[in-house]
Every structure is written in structure tokens, then in C-alpha cells.
């Protein structure tokens, strides 16, 4: 009877070279296609044509926000309801909105006061977003407290 030959007690060795090649290729692919994108967020604006945004404003605190621009498109003046001027201080505008709303969030996004933003044509978009930020809420720590959910834009003014 023939005995099976005894196996040597050497370590079984895996051939890793090709696996490492493929893994490095994958790694290079992912590193090259990787894009660091900043976190983005949204402001919702509901604006049907020729009408208000949803329900009528029953809060009796309409806010008409007029944003005047300099010739370079910088913010020149913030005027509320054609009478109150806040210079270009967003904090004063926020304090005014806080005072008007009593710091209370509207019960639903379709309710509560409505802000109409009327801006000079050449005012840079970043100032429009700053205005929207100032009137829609405030950040307290990590929480965002909503003050106004309904934003609409006045008809565009003609370019100078």
C-alpha cells in the first residue's frame, strides 16, 4: 500500500501582488474622482404667478423689504415698509422681525407673516440671500428658529 506523502510544514503563502495592484488602482481612481462639496441647504419660495404665496397674510404684520444697491451692486440701504431705514445692518432688521413676530414660529409653513422683497436689479444675489436669512429666522446654537416662512419677490425692477 502506498502512503500519501507527508506534506511539508511550510506556511501556505498567498500571492498578494495582483490583489494589491488592483486595490491601489481602485484607491487612485477614488482619490482622483473625489470632490469635496460643501454642505448645501435650501430656502423654499412658493410664488404662483400674479398672486400671493398661498394663504392670505392674516397677521397684520406685512413686511415690505426694500433693498437699495450701489452702482457696484453692493448693499446701500435696507428700508422696511417704505419708512424704516436700517442702513446696511442685517442684525437690526432681524431684531425688527423678532419684535414683530414675538419670536414665534408660524404654525405651518403656509401661515404667518409674509415678506415681500423688492430689490434693485443690480444688487448682488448674496445680499438677497442675506436678506432672506435675516428675516426667516435665527440660529441659536445648533438649532434654527424660524420666524417667517413665506417669502416672495416683488416684480423685478428694470436694469439701470
Amino acid at each position, binding site marked *: 500500500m502506498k502512503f500519501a506523502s507527508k506534506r511539508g510544514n511550510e506556511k501556505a503563502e498567498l500571492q498578494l501582488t495582483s490583489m*494589491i495592484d488592483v*486595490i491601489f488602482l481602485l484607491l487612485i481612481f477614488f482619490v482622483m474622482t473625489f470632490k469635496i462639496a460643501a454642505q448645501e441647504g*435650501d*430656502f423654499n419660495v412658493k410664488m404662483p404667478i400674479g398672486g400671493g404665496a398661498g394663504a392670505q397674510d392674516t397677521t397684520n404684520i406685512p413686511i415690505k423689504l426694500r433693498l437699495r444697491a450701489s452702482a457696484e451692486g453692493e448693499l446701500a440701504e435696507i428700508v422696511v415698509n417704505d419708512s424704516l431705514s436700517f442702513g446696511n445692518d442685517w442684525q437690526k432688521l432681524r431684531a425688527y422681525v423678532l419684535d414683530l413676530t414675538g419670536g414665534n414660529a408660524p404654525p405651518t409653513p403656509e401661515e404667518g407673516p409674509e415678506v415681500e422683497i423688492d430689490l434693485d*436689479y443690480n*444688487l448682488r*444675489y448674496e445680499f438677497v440671500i442675506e436678506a432672506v436669512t435675516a428675516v426667516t429666522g435665527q*440660529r441659536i446654537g445648533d438649532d434654527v428658529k424660524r420666524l417667517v416662512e413665506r417669502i416672495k419677490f416683488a416684480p423685478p425692477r428694470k436694469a439701470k
Partner: protein
Amino acid sequence: MRPRKKFDTKVAEGDMTAMIDMVFQLIIFFMVLINFSQDDQNDKIKLPSSELAKPADAPLTFPIVLHLDSTGAIYVGSEVATVESVAPMLRTEIQLLVSRNQSAKDANIVIRGHKNTPGGLVQDLIKKCQELGFEKFVLRVREEV
């Protein structure tokens, strides 16, 4: 004199385990974070930032992403238009909506405007979309850190 020891003739083998572990972790990291979607990204657009910006809780229903750069060019997918010439592209989207038993009112127009774009151009774009029946607009901004 003491005779010199003979060197071991076996092949020197480095321990690859730690390196493979690390490389796998790197691959998993990049795989999880990779974003193949080109729809909502455009290198030409530098979004304005806002401290109130927070990612949406739920995905938008039928989002139509319009990238508006500082010169007034509008990028819709791979096509470029202006406020005056964007209507045909939006009509194509409306046809798609109708084929899914929806209307322009159900869609969300996502405006990714460059921070230096004149605000009036954004208003013009909104007005053009309103004329086509769109009602819901989303102003996309960068989260301020």
C-alpha cells in the same frame, strides 16, 4: 577566530497585513463619499452662504436644477441658455411631467445662483418660470460654518 554565521537565504517578507487594512479603509472612505451625480454641481457657480441653510429633510419632488452664473448664463444639465432662451428647455421638462401625470405646479425649480449674480436676473428667471406655470422655487445656498 570564530567563523562568520551564514546569512539566511530565505526571501525577506514584509508583513502586508497592516498596509492592506489601511488601504481597504481608505477605499471604503472614498467609496462612501464619492458623488457621481453631476446634476447638482457646477464648478462655475459659487453659492452664497447662509447660517440658516440646512439640508432638506426629504428629497424634493421632481427637482429641476438651474445653475445661474454671474454673466446670466443658465446651465440646465449639459445645455446652456439665457433667461430669454430657457423656456424651450423648461417646456421639455413640463412634457416629461405631463407624461407622469403631473404638472409644472408639482415641480421644484432649484436655483443655484452665483453669489455675484445680479439679484434682478434671479427675479427674471423666477418670472420666466412662473409664466410657464412653475410655482415652487428653491434657492440653494451653501451652509455657513
